[in-house]
């Protein structure tokens, strides 16, 4: 057992609780007198409820109440209209909640929900994305508050003058987050105080939202999320079920548990919106990029605007004197898209990196070399220097580890039995973000230390790493540090999102622990009976960071695939990634994050796909049998490495976020490997057998 200091592979502190089943998730908390709620989804894609008949539902044994827009409490104002549940007879998309049955048992609640009769006046709906959709408009901002459009130099002229041009359209399908733990809530009222056990990536945001919706002072609301079974962005903000559960608990006067049934998740908990992306790259004969245009078309729901910022990476990745990056969005009668692991970067880097591979082929340049030739010391869009940019080091180290040297660039010339094999690569990037946070560090009379901050561990290892940060700043072994996270009564801290958690919370923990260590050193004498406590806030520190640096993590990913000549089945053989992510604080949990992201990226490349059913207006795949996530058999060998990357411009730990970069670029590495194996360029994800079969004819059985 090591001391668990920073940089050591400390095992997850709650690992034993989780694998033995004693860790409590949102609806695992025992509460007395609990009842259960089951929502009723709309069965039209657009229109209005004309009547709701709850008589049969209320007659079901055990059913306590049915909430509808006619009797539900009126809610206060919030920006996110998806949370204003049961407030109006309007239906914005199929699957939107129109009623809620509450009963003594889960079974009775489900029976009650099934017995609610809703009549609608349906209106024609519009659910299919196309780039020339008449509703396309230019939003004010895109997700992440990035500029919608950016223009540098004269793209059109430079592109027209380029010796080599690539002009292709790439499409990504709708994807669903599908964390193992569904979105779930236990809501308990005690007089005017509200206690919520919630599956969320950030309890503070949930508290603020509930206080606004139910007209309560925030001090009367406590939201906790001790353990969270994954979120992948879909729990970054509150989702409708928490509002329904709180309503139902108030209406019945009893605690209420509500876990969103898996088949309903696709419509109410968010998804990655489909995109259509046109990428044009103009380069000289040596592959040096002169002109780069990335134009993104996507959709949002009619309830709220969420614009996948897929063209943003093109502003960062490569030297490109003439650049145009744009986003257009249309509003469809579909479920609301939202954050899914690396929103923007994940979709956008598929298109950009796939186009880079096509440019490498067009220029007859090795794809690794092409990226090295277009490396840059300054962020093209802002002109700022990078605080650190390890892309070139990752490319070189990855190529060495993967055995890239001497790769025959010709497509469709390698086979093993009936398998065609190929390799491909792509770059990764993700911004190194930080947000203000608070934390408290306490020296207890017992000799132990207590650290408190409302961070959230969604399975990443945050609890463990924050303990290590505190131990290092205090100069004590991590076993002496007790950490409290996941409750809105703790010092405020930002959401576990944007790969910013460890940097943000860790900074505050570091600051509090360091200040406590200083006070202890100055104290000289024994600790007071009540211990010694120091609270820190990083708002000023974060604001004081130099604005003159561009801060991003980078990486390089390599893939090897095999494609069956007869069936077009593609199987991953190897994924290898090398990342430049500042200082790695815990190699065990870091590797898990990076490998997890790469697996999810491979899954996106080959499997994941939500089909919008134009007739009904919903996504057809709504369980884990039909929505194909990679299983163990799909992921034979995945390795993640990182380079040493000191960076003084980040935070006191010198770390960059690692939760999302692993999924960025993987899909492009895989489609490039598929091209290398087969000669077939797949630009519409996922890579399915039917896309490859027509191009595999020359290897197949003779006709007649």
């Amino acid at each position, binding site marked *: 057992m090591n001391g668990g200091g920073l940089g050591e592979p400390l095992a997850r502190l709650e690992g034993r609780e989780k694998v033995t089943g004693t860790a409590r998730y949102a609806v695992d908390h025992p509460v007395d007198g609990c009842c259960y709620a089951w929502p009723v989804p709309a069965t039209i894609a657009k229109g209005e409820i004309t009547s709701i008949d709850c008589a049969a539902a209320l007659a079901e044994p055990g059913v306590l109440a049915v909430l509808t827009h006619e009797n539900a409490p009126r809610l206060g104002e919030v920006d996110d209209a998806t949370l204003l549940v049961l407030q109006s007879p309007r239906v914005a998309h199929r699957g939107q909640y129109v009623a809620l049955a509450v009963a003594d048992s889960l079974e009775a609640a489900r029976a009650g929900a099934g017995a609610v009769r809703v009549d609608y006046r349906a209106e024609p709906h519009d659910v299919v994305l196309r780039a020339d959709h008449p509703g396309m408009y230019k939003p004010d901002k895109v997700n992440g508050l990035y500029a919608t459009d950016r223009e540098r130099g004269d793209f059109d002229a430079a592109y027209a003058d380029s010796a080599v041009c690539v002009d292709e359209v790439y499409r990504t399908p709708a994807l669903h987050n599908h964390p193992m733990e569904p979105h779930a809530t236990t809501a308990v009222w005690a007089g005017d105080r509200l206690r919520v056990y919630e599956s969320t990536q950030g309890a503070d945001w949930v508290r603020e939202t509930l206080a606004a919706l139910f007209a309560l002072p925030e001090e009367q609301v406590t939201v906790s999320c001790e353990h969270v079974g994954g979120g992948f962005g879909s729990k970054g903000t509150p989702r409708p079920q928490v509002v329904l559960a709180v309503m139902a608990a108030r209406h019945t006067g009893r605690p209420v548990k509500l876990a969103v049934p898996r088949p309903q998740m696709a419509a109410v908990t968010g998804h990655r919106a489909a995109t259509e992306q046109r990428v044009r790259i103009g380069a000289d004969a040596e592959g040096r990029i002169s002109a780069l245009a990335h134009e993104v078309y996507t959709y949002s729901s009619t309830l709220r605007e969420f614009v996948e910022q897929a063209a943003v990476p093109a502003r960062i990745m490569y030297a490109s004197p003439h650049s145009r990056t744009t986003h257009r969005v249309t509003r469809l009668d579909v479920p609301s898209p939202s954050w899914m692991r690396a929103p923007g970067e994940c979709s956008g880097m598929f298109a950009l990196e796939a186009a880079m591979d096509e440019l490498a082929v067009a220029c007859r340049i090795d794809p690794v070399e092409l990226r090295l030739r277009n490396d840059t010391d300054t962020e093209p869009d802002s002109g700022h220097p990078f605080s650190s940019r390890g892309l070139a080091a990752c490319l070189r180290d990855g190529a060495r580890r993967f055995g890239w040297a001497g790769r025959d660039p010709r497509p469709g010339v390698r086979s093993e039995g*009936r398998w065609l094999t190929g390799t491909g690569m792509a770059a990764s990037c993700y911004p190194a973000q930080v947000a203000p946070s608070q934390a408290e560090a306490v020296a207890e009379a017992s000799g132990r230390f207590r650290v408190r901050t409302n961070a959230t561990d969604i399975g990443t290892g945050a609890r463990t790493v924050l303990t290590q940060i505190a131990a290092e700043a205090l100069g004590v072994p991590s076993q002496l540090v007790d950490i409290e996270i996941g409750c809105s009564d703790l010092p405020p801290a930002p959401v576990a999102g944007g790969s910013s958690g460890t940097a943000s919370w860790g900074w505050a923990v570091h600051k509090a622990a360091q200040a406590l260590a200083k006070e202890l050193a100055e104290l000289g004498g024994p600790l007071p009976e009540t211990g010694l406590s120091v609270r820190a806030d990083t708002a000023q520190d974060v604001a004081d960071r130099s604005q003159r640096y561009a801060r991003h993590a980078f990486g390089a990913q390599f893939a090897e695939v095999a494609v069956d000549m*007869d069936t077009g089945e593609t199987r991953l053989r190897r994924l290898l990634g090398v990342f430049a992510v500042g200082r790695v604080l815990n190699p065990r949990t870091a590797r898990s994050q990076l490998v997890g992201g790469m697996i999810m990226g491979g899954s996106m490349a080959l499997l994941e796909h939500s089909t919008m*059913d134009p007739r009904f207006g919903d996504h057809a795949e709504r369980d884990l049998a039909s929505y194909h996530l990679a299983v163990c058999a799909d992921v034979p060998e995945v390795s993640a490495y990182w380079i040493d990357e000191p960076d003084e411009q980040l935070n006191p730990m010198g770390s960059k976020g690692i939760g999302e970069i692993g999924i960025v670029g993987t899909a492009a590495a895989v489609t490039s490997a598929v091209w290398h194996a087969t000669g077939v360029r797949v630009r519409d994800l996922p890579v399915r*057998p039917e896309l490859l*079969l027509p191009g595999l004819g020359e290897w197949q059985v003779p006709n007649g």
Partner: protein
Amino acid sequence: MKSFGYQRAQRAQDAVAALAATPGACYLGGGTNLVDLMKLGVERPELLVDVSRLPHGTVDRTASGGLMIGAAVRNSELAAEPVVRERYPVLSQALLAGASPQLRNAATIGGNLLQRTRCLYFQDIGKPCNKREPGTGCPARTGVHRELAVLGASPHCVATHPSDMAVALAALDAEVHVLGPDGQRTVPVTELHRLPGEHPERDTVLAHGDLITHVELGPVPEAVNSAYRKVRDRASYSFALVSVAAALEVLDGTVSRVRLAFGGVAAKPWRAYTAEERLLGGPATEAAFTTALEAELAPAEPLHDNAFKVPMLRNTAVRTLARLARSGGPTPGEEER
């Protein structure tokens, strides 16, 4: 969820009598499909009669040199049975290609034969489906149907049967022993499942109360050289896009015995009689295999998004036969990846 009764049958006759007495009753095997469908509201039985503990849990040799497989044998048990692995590898491979280890440990042979389709419209009670609610229509034809049928469908239904095991059993001419209210009878597996026609709501020829007690295999000497190849998007835990069960005997370069059945392409395991007829007595060459397969697949009527299944199935069947034609050649499983 609708309340339902539960009985555990001690004897097969008791189970049959219990069903006969209750029109809304269902047999319960491993529950791997039925319980899911109950949760979705697709199945709403009044009474479950648990037949998983009936004394049908063994695999025994028959006097004719075949096997009598109890309907309550678990999928994983049958797959691991040495005699099955040696003499009917196609069956062992088909069983192992299905579902996940956990599901195979729970699923029973009888229940596996009676799985319902995985068509997404069938599973969604908020939408029309002729199989679930006759006369409501089939949205799959113009909707999401990538995984659905290309053979033997009707304007009323394009569902596929999901079982891998059933495809192998169809190729092997297995017979199902059925105990019904009127006594015992046998039904060939190839005639157990129905094509949809005008009545997609009827998956099989079984009547209410009919209980599968055993599945009987004949000696089938050519099954020693047999294989099951399943083509799917995901490497495990996914249903077949297409699958092929084949057994082949070649003497002096000529096909002397052949059995061929397809999965993932029709409402029943599709026995390729036309291809078998063309292959028998002909040369064991890829060209001959291809011609036979083209003839078998000529009547295919694919939909917009599943046309790929026809060439995929042809290629898969030709490749599987070609492998079997190379005596002692590797089985498809060994060449994976």
